[in-house]
């Protein structure tokens, strides 16, 4: 095995950990490196570390693991620090999901849905004479206030569970040692028996003139202190489409600039339906172009920006004017500046992601990782939380359940929501062969959409079955309102190995979308 510390006493601890499983479990329960050394009959100076576990990153994965470890009376520290965005924006404890991800996104998506509901309500008999307008500031203040209460809640929870928290940037400086630098530049060193890296990701920039000075990212959008106005969203990820979706739903003029395909990695049949729906509902799409330059025409809140873009196919150049340019072209793992080289943790040089074994252990036995930074794992909050909790239970509570990364359900909160679990049609064909899978599908018209005369052929459900395995359902896709709520239950059914026959024999609830 590879360890950086060949001359430290602790290397014997490491060797024993990977060697003698039984003794290690016993030692883990007792939690003292000294005892382990005694057991190995080495009369070395025992190590006593400052902490049992130091977690670098206070997001979904890090906090879940820290709180779990505290339950087993471990001495835990969480280091969380947000490097400000190029525009100077920062936020409190809780990570991406809470501050600049899932939570504000879903709230703003809801704000947009409520706008639509207000329109629909007239058809159901509600009478109001004024035109309905939206206030960005009212919405954003309310969202930020809620996020603030979550940040505070985490502070209280950590304190009550006796987890030490520092708002400081953690980086490895040597074996078992991190340096924590706070925002005033003060540095402190801490040691721990084990470490958990849960540093997550940050939005990628285009690397073109004007990108960092004038463009915003999702890190800035949810606390923007002024309405973004006419917006260009660059990217075709779920982040791009969800943001474009709710911005348009709030009444803004939105354009999406796409380099190639929509929602890479997701079922493309559904991805295209989502794009069509958005286009039919007033969102402009510029396909097969990439921005090459962003210039400021006028300062302001918002200002006016000129974007120059080039076609990916021919030599065409186009220009456009927008109040705001939102970049959503991808996220990069925060693994390059945390001193991983000093402790020998291997990362994928190209992507920055950390490869781990099925117990979330890096190539360095006492260093673990969870969350978005993991290579080849889903970037979802519940996945990070589950992985973090199970890891801690295995380390400190003698459990041996590993995180199940298969058949994890997800939902994309575009204007027409998309819930999925299992294989996309393309990946099912690739894995099992077209002749071995059967696809069942159906359009449906939600009852709630009939009276207000909303689209009658846009909602869609599809299941993919493995013919060779009793027509077991291996892929579930639904496009329609409340897709997340619909999908959750089916995810458990898929986990239990539901077959098409079992699905057919389940009587539907009427009248709901899920009955289809």
């Amino acid at each position: 095995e590879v360890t950086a510390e060949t001359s430290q006493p602790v290397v014997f601890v490491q060797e024993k950990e990977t060697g003698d499983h039984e003794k290690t479990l016993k030692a883990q329960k007792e939690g003292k490196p000294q005892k382990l050394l005694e057991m190995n009959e080495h009369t070395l100076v025992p190590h006593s570390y400052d902490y049992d576990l130091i977690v670098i990153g206070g997001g979904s994965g890090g906090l879940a693991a820290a709180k779990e470890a505290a339950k087993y009376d471990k001495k835990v520290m969480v280091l969380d620090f947000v490097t400000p965005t190029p525009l100077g924006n920062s936020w409190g404890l809780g990570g991406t999901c809470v501050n600049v991800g899932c939570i504000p996104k879903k709230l703003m998506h809801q704000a947009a849905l409520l706008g639509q509901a207000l329109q629909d309500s007239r058809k159901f008999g509600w009478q109001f004479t004024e035109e309905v307008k939206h206030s960005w500031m009212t919405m954003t203040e309310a969202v930020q206030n809620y996020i603030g209460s979550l940040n505070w809640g985490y502070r209280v929870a950590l304190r009550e569970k006796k987890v030490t928290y520092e708002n400081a940037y953690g980086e490895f400086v040597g074996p078992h040692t991190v340096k924590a630098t706070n925002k005033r530049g003060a540095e402190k060193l801490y040691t721990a028996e084990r470490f958990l890296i849960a540093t997550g990701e940050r939005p990628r920039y285009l690397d073109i003139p004007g990108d960092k000075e004038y463009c915003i990212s999702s890190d800035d959008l949810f606390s923007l202190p002024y309405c973004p106005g006419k917006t260009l969203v660059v990217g075709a990820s779920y982040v791009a489409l969800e943001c474009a979706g709710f911005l348009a739903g709030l009444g803004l003029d939105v354009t999406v600039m796409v380099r190639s395909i929509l929602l890479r990695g997701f079922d493309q049949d559904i991805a295209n339906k989502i794009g069509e729906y958005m286009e039919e509902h007033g969102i402009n799409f510029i396909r097969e172009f990439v921005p090459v330059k962003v210039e400021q025409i006028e300062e302001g809140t918002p200002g006016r920006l000129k974007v120059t873009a080039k076609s990916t196919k021919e030599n065409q150049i186009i220009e456009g004017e927008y109040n705001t340019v939102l970049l959503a072209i991808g996220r990069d793992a925060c693994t390059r500046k945390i001193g991983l080289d000093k402790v020998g943790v291997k990362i994928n040089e190209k992507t920055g992601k950390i490869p781990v074994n099925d117990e979330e252990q890096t190539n360095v036995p006492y260093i673990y990782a969870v969350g978005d930074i993991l290579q080849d794992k889903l970037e979802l909050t519940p996945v990070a939380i589950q992985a973090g909790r199970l890891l801690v239970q295995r380390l400190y509570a003698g459990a041996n359940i590993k995180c199940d990364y298969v058949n994890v359900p997800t939902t994309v909160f575009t204007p027409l929501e998309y819930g999925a679990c299992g294989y996309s049609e393309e990946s099912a064909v690739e894995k099992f062969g077209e002749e071995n899978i059967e696809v069942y599908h159906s359009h449906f018209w939600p009852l709630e959409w009939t009276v207000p005369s909303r689209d009658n052929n846009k909602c869609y459900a599809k299941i993919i079955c493995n013919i060779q395995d009793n027509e077991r359902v291996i892929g579930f896709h639904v496009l329609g309102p409340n897709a997340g709520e619909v999908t959750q239950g089916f995810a458990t059914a898929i986990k239990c190995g539901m077959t098409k026959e079992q699905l057919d024999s389940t009587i539907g609830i009427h009248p709901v979308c899920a009955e289809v």
Partner: protein
Amino acid sequence: MGWEEKQVRGYLEFAQTAQRYHGRPIFALFCGDKDAEGRSWCPDCVTAEPIVRKELHNMPDESVFIYCLVGDRAYWKDPNNEFRKNLKLTGVPTLLKYGTPQKLVEEECFKAELVRMLFTED
């Protein structure tokens, strides 16, 4: 300059006082009314008050500490009372940093560490 304390009774007085010190850090402790012997009808408030007072020196300079008696038990139990409606208070005692979502409710106020964290958190 240190900090100063203002004692108020009822929502109107509270709102006026908070308004007057706009711009300075304002912390407020809400408790049930006290009888002629100085005992509150709210037993948790009786427990929390000395604990909170012991940590007041941790407040940043220029802070204003507003000690607010909310009213009698019947007023407090009314789900439409002004404190519940306007400040979203859910229980007494409540210790909060005015204008932020930071607050400690009921038994949380018994923990000196949490009180200190509220006063020093930025």
